[in-house]
């Protein structure tokens, strides 16, 4: 006879926190457990379901959001860690000067199919352009490789980032 692994999580470790989050320019005061990730808080407590969970292990990029302009995997970020930052999710991209261009470029170039990885791709592509990483197709591929797309829209994603970056450049 064999038994399951010894439990490694103790319920006593549970601690509630009062958090103040700024998401897409709006303030939210919430009570959450210390262990809750930014991804889970965005989705399950704030109802911002645009950000997706693909693996919960920081391996797929579907949950990518911006914190103070930097790309962050929200599944590997505790909500408490984002407390003093400005969080931007895909829902905030329509107001974002570069994000909006990226969204239009993804539709024009068909940089998506099922659309599930798309919120992460949009956020990541926006940051990629702002980081100055969209200098060539090769550079775009590298900078966008943290965002998996199982539908295989990669060539179209590169085309979308390239075209959005060109518009940003012209401005």
């Amino acid at each position, binding site marked *: *006879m*064999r*038994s*399951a692994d010894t*439990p*490694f*999580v103790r*319920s006593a470790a*549970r601690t509630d926190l009062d958090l103040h989050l700024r998401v897409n320019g709006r303030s939210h005061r919430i009570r959450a*457990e210390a262990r*809750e990730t930014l991804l*889970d808080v965005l989705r*399950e407590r704030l109802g911002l*379901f*645009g*950000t*997706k*969970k*693909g*693996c*919960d*292990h920081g*391996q*797929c990029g*579907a949950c990518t959001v911006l914190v103070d302009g930097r790309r962050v995997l929200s599944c590997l970020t505790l909500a408490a860690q984002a407390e003093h930052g400005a969080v931007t999710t*895909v*829902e905030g*991209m*329509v107001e974002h000067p570069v994000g909006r261009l*990226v*969204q239009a470029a993804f*539709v024009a170039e*068909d940089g*998506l*199919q*099922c*659309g*599930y*990885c*798309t*919120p992460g791709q*949009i956020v990541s592509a926006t940051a990629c352009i702002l980081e100055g990483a969209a200098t060539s*197709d090769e550079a*775009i*591929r*590298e900078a*966008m*490789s*943290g965002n*998996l*797309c*199982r*539908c*295989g*829209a*990669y*060539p*179209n*994603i*590169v085309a979308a980032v390239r075209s959005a970056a060109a518009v940003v450049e012209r401005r």
Partner: protein
Amino acid sequence: MTDPTKRKHGDASDGALHLGSPLARVDGDRKVRGEAAYALDAAPAGLAHGVLVRGTIGAGTVLSVDAASARQSPGVLMVFTPFDTPVLGAPDSFLDGTPGEGPFHVFPASILHWGQAVAAVIAETRQQAETAAALLRIDYAPGDVVPSILSKDAGPGVPVGAVDIDRGDAEAALAGSVFRVEATYETPREYHVPIEPHGAVAWWEGDRLTVREPSQWIDAMARTYAGWFGIPFENVRLISHFVGGGFGSKVTAMTHGAVAALAARELGRPVKVAVTRAQNFTAHGGRAATRQTLRLGADADGRLKAIVQDGESETSVFVPFVEQLNAATSVMYDVPNLRSRQRLVHVNTVTPAHMRAPGKHPSAFGLESAIDELAHLAGIDPVELRLRNEAGFNPQTGQPWSSRRLREALVEGARRFGWKDRPAAPRSMRDADGAFLGWGVAAGLFPALDHFGEAGLRVDADGSIEVLSAGIDMGTGTYTILAQAAADALGVLPGDVTVRLGDSELPSGPLAGNSLLAGVMTGLVHKAAAAMRETIIGLALTEQGSPFRGSELNTLDITRGRIHPTLDEGRAVPIADLLKAIGRDRIERIEDNFPAGTSAQERHRIMTTVAGLRPPDGGVSSVASWCAHFVEVKVDEDFGTVRVRRVVSGFDCGRLYNPHLAASQFRGGIVMGIGQALLEGGRVDPRDGRIVNDNLGDYLIPTNADIPDIEVFSVGEPDFRAAPMGGKPVGEIGIVGVAPAICNAVFHATGQRIRRLPLDIAALLSTN
């Protein structure tokens, strides 16, 4: 010869049809804004969260589950174990609707594979449920495990029989052949890995169940829920507006859905069960591992005389799932003599499932690799060898092809790729940095199936026009092409049409599988929209209040949503205005393609089981899509790394309903094929059958940086024997033949044959 991406937009004003034009994805805006609501993007009031617990033995029995601590853990509402989970009802057979195999035990105590679900915990939050799940103490009596097809004790397998082929006398023809090649090819377990994991949100209102769940086949899944819970089919509402990738993995209802619905019933509140990424490797099967030995014989001109195939595929110990290894082998080329045998090796795994191009991929990997070996042996260019063996009709069935433009794909692909400059000898092309380059080619096919269905069309006095179907869009473009099809037949613009999909309350749609949904549904929507057009014109001519009543016109036209006398657009009246004028709020039409006199009961059976699958064209002609892939690889022998540098692929998929979106699917298939060749394979622990790499850091799928430019082009022409609107399968063909094209290119670069996927860097290094 059309480049799917470089066609001009057409609209009604230039007389072009919408169907066949490269309209942008109509649901694209919602997806890029994060507004497309997937199944788990819902939090109905009072939602509770469930997690599944996996068993940690490869075979045996659950002896006991100590759930005392778990039940006392904060927030826990319910724990299900093999010993206290209500037994669910028995759905009818998925195959044909006959009585099923008996009650559904959600968590059987008998363990047949590692990772089998053994318990579930429901709590106020997912974190609480996960914490409590870790507190369960599960005692097992482990049994003997056969971990995989590679295990020594897996045995030779059981003959399948049903897929055996004996055409002519293959052994004799092989013995008399001038050129003979023999090799064994292996493909690993592959996993669908949609980026959206499986999951469900379920709630009850009385004896009516609503489930939000990603689904490739709404009605079949709804039927299973009805059977489980002993309620009428009509009492189940399954909603799947957006599906975050399926690839064959989201066709049937599964344990997680049963748990969500069961817990929701017991608790009287909505329950969400999210399957974790790791659990997705054991909650449902991926593609079966396969192994096949091929012997090919050809005459002095390279004309195939014989193929002898002997293979095995893996399946579970409880379901004889067949990954058909001769799916391509038997029909690709004109071979007078063919013998094919396949066995099933039963091991302790979750039952494998259909995955994008089931059978066709491993079949083509073997055949198209062996053809390359034959070409090399015979000293014949591999494109030329394929052209010499073109089949004028289906060599397996004797049927004429409805269309087969593989020759055009090969010839045009070779031209675009620059194939004529390819030196025949391996190890004769180098990049500027000294690394080897190699060029490879392979072909593929995807046989079509047809299905039945319904399509609804609704026109409202408020101006809205809706297409209604329980069929789904998992990124395949259904929303878009059905708007295009409706627009043409009704006489409106695609932008005027709202397509509603993925809800079992809508008219019944076929499964999104075997790449058949687009062909079936464009035909049905065209039919419904054409009927609607006739209805509207009839009303305009006859109804009181219509400005056209009594005009002595025989008929009217509808152009850009306005009704007018055929040669007089100046007197046009918008459809909505006509409806208001004649006092109608709404007109609805539902059209179907069932044989006349089909009973409601038979319709239900056809639409909810695989009994509805049928050959296209009434079985008169053989219908398949065809493709040819040309690949350049760069191989660094110091590191054993292989990079795909360039892909040019030609497709014959008949008429493309939307070349822009079809090109995306072609590329997507090719990307998955690159993964199959270079990256993907389940690693099985030889002790207990555990999938070791059950995460996206270890089961590698292609990243953006792995993918080069991919040029796709269409050589297809409308094929109205294949489907009412002239198209052939699109969604799966792209994957077929990619892996052998890459491996053939690696041979050309290095002189080494890759006969086992994924390509093993160590193997590539070891002989250098």
